């Protein structure tokens, strides 16, 4: 067989391999530059108690989750039962960040769907969201005892991600 004919075949196979690998990549999942860095400083009013604030120093020494949600967010409904279940298991405190939302609507939404959060804070203009690099609600961050972001879930939590990534990570971080 003519050797020269193998060249286009080789090129084709190489391109096909790259394209095939590309099929399994999700361009919507942009790796966060925040992983391994201290969580951005914030202090915001609480959703259920607007007179009081909450900031990241309040949970120093604990592993916690920051879940970004909103009453207008459709896919938040998908992950919400998982969060409620997780809160019931009482493994890790979950802080809700009500992102670009009317506090009134946020409270109503939680009353309807269940409130898995130790507390929620209100980010009306989305500034804290920007500091956290939020671009697709819901998003979930795992923050360790010294306040460093260890993991970010973009989009709704799944049982799979929770069991395989988030919970083992929380367990490991809690030990140290």
């Amino acid at each position, binding site marked *: 067989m003519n050797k020269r004919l193998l060249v286009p075949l080789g090129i084709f196979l190489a391109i096909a391999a790259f394209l095939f690998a590309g099929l399994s990549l999700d361009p919507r999942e*942009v790796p966060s530059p925040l992983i391994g860095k201290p969580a951005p400083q914030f202090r915001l009013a609480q959703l259920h108690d607007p007179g009081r604030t909450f900031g990241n120093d309040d949970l120093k020494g604990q592993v916690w989750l920051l879940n970004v949600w909103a009453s207008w967010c459709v896919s938040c409904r998908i992950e919400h039962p998982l969060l409620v279940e997780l809160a019931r298991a009482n493994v890790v405190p979950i802080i809700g960040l009500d992102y670009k939302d009317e506090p009134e609507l946020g409270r109503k939404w939680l009353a309807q769907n269940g409130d898995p959060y130790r507390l929620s804070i209100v980010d009306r203009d989305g500034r804290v969201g920007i500091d956290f*690099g939020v*671009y697709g609600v819901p998003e979930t961050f795992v923050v360790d005892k010294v306040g460093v972001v260890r993991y970010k879930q973009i989009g709704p939590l799944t049982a799979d991600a929770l069991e395989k990534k988030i919970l083992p990570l929380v367990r490991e971080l809690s030990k140290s």
Partner: protein
Amino acid sequence: MTRLLLLVMVMLASGYAAADTAQPTENDPLAQSRAVKLSEQLRCLVCQNQSIAESNAELALDLRRQIHEQIAAGKSDADIVDYMVARYGDFVLYRPPVRATTALLWGGPALLLVLGFFVLYRVLRTRRTAAPLPALTTDEHAQAARMLGDATEHGR
């Protein structure tokens, strides 16, 4: 070959198609043009094929506001770009930084061009140095004449 060259030229040129649709917000024309320029360089993460200048996504709106505020606060363009990269990563930049991981991205086109010229050179050289057909012997001449009939004798 001309077709290939044309293709290469079209591919190179397509990068220059730019859009300029930003919200007019500031009175200061210089700050305004800086804001527009910056927001054109940054990718909106919600609709990833649009810049912050083009996108009407809620987030793009917020980020445009951030840019305006930071310009007003006297931040330099580099500061503002760093601010975005610190939050959203290199992905927000339409022009990715030159790094070890992006070397192929930046060098790839030049590499392909060099490779193309190399192949062109090889093809042209083999064509030029191809041995000319050996002259026919008298016997072969006679054979050819027989096969072609009279045509070769009286033809051109």
